């Protein structure tokens, strides 16, 4: 009994916005199943009353003074853009026809 099915992997890929071909699914799904088998070992640890750690060190939110500091120019910020127009990122359409 696999811990994750091929269909579930396909669903995860959609959630993660990764298009996967059938061949890629054939290759990746069994590997993910193995990996999930490994990571599921954490359930062996009795830890009901143990607090979770998200960061190794105690951290608090850090605020800086609200003052202007030098920053990127629009040209610099757009320098790596796949497409730019009128000092803005040009992106594919966001809404579908039906919307």
């Amino acid at each position: 009994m696999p811990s994750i099915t091929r269909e579930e992997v396909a669903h995860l890929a959609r959630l993660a916005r990764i298009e996967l071909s059938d061949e890629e699914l054939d290759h990746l799904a069994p590997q993910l199943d193995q990996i999930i088998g490994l990571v599921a070992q954490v359930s062996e640890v009795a830890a009901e009353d143990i607090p979770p750690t998200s960061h190794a060190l105690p951290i608090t939110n850090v605020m800086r003074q609200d003052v202007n500091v030098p920053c990127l120019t629009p040209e610099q910020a757009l320098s790596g853009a796949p497409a730019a127009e009128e000092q803005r990122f040009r992106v594919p359409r966001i809404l579908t026809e039906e919307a």
Partner: protein
Amino acid sequence: MSDLTRKTAVELSELMAGGEASSVEITQAHLDRIAAVDTSVHAFLHVDAEGALAQAADVDTRRAAGERLGPLAGVPLALKDVLTQDGVPTTAGSKILEGWKPPYDSTVVKRLKAAGIVILGKTNMDEFAMGSSTENSAYGTTHNPWDLGRIPGGSGGGSSAAISAYEAPLAIGTDTGGSIRQPAAFTGTVGVKPTYGGTSRYGLIALASSLDTPGPCARTTLDAALLHEVIAGYDPMDSTSIDQAVPPVVEAARRGDVSGLRIGVVRELGGEGYQPGVEARFREAVELLTKLGAEVVEVSCPHFQYALPAYYLILPSEASSNLAKFDAMRFGLRVGDDGNNDAEKVMSLTREAGFGDEVKRRIMLGTHALSSGYYDAYYGQAQKVRTLIARDFARAYEQVDVLVSPATPTTAFAIGDRIDDPIAMYKNDLCTIPSNLAGNAAASFPCGLADEDGLPVGFHVMAPVMRDELLYQVGSALETALTEQWGGVLMSKVPELEVTR
């Protein structure tokens, strides 16, 4: 002038201070070495000859003008391709960032430049630092200079290979689960993961933000300490940066005294699955430290056995979120933008084409671990295990000053050996992962060659948070004693690479 590429950073610094060599000469010697051997090693993804020589000339001019310069001014360095450098291609080993030139310097790069360190170029790595061999790089595998048929470790295999191939005396790596220390172990070099928050993550392309730590790579302990001092320290641009003085790492590396130091051998990091030659060299190093006056005891860290599964939940969870920024909108690759496909389709096609298998596996695993219904059982439980691992460390440090283990269960493996077996690949990092989860400092130092394959073995030292100097104290004592015993440094045994012209 004898071969400048064989010198340590300290020796190069002395040559420049004494007027016996210029930074331009030293930089050119390393660029020549790269041209001669990198076809077979493939440590570099990009060599910035022009930029490096300009930086070197600037240092020479300032020195001639009588300016007081830092100890590493004019010394060349190889930079892991995961740190941004203004105007220089930065890919993180991924197709999705091919050709991207960041418009700003990371804090590490800013500090390197301020110290007059000459950046030769960017080194190869597993894509987004996910891997232990560089085989996950989208730009080909780096070869281990000790045996070109083997991997140099990963993810920072380009950096470790560059220094062990004498292409650079210094390098920068980043360590999320062992990506500095495991490559150091596999190439007979020194690699240090500073305390988490001891070095800035600003401009480091994030893998797992609660774990990522930049650090120094070098052929000697003192060289690593000098580089550590340059890059470490509080940075307001990183919200998890520690606002405290940098631990006295250089002084500790110079002193190298372990008399009275309490050392704990971690019982759980050895035995089954560990190569005999690795365990033999490790035991001898422990005996040597005992002879040098250290008090050695065995300690138990029972939850370390769950570090690997906890790590492979925490890391993918953070990575799946961090890598969401590669959405084909603001930088990098864009695929399928034909005027017909909507943004979501373009995003999915781009991520399919731009990410390699390991990145896809980990993003999907992270997405799974964070999804409702699984969150508590996976991510939540992994965070609790993280607490238990930190408590194991805390208890151990009540008894001892530092903990030690082999850096890796085996020596460098053959290219292709584990690439289709993710779990075998993950087990490389058994010894190094606990320190990342607890955020403490750790390092690998060369301790000899394994009998069965003649390949380098790494000695792993773990120290409490912000006690990074203890690593150098142990590393330096070991290095001095072993160098005396061997009649030279371990790196002098690396085979000569064939030179192509």
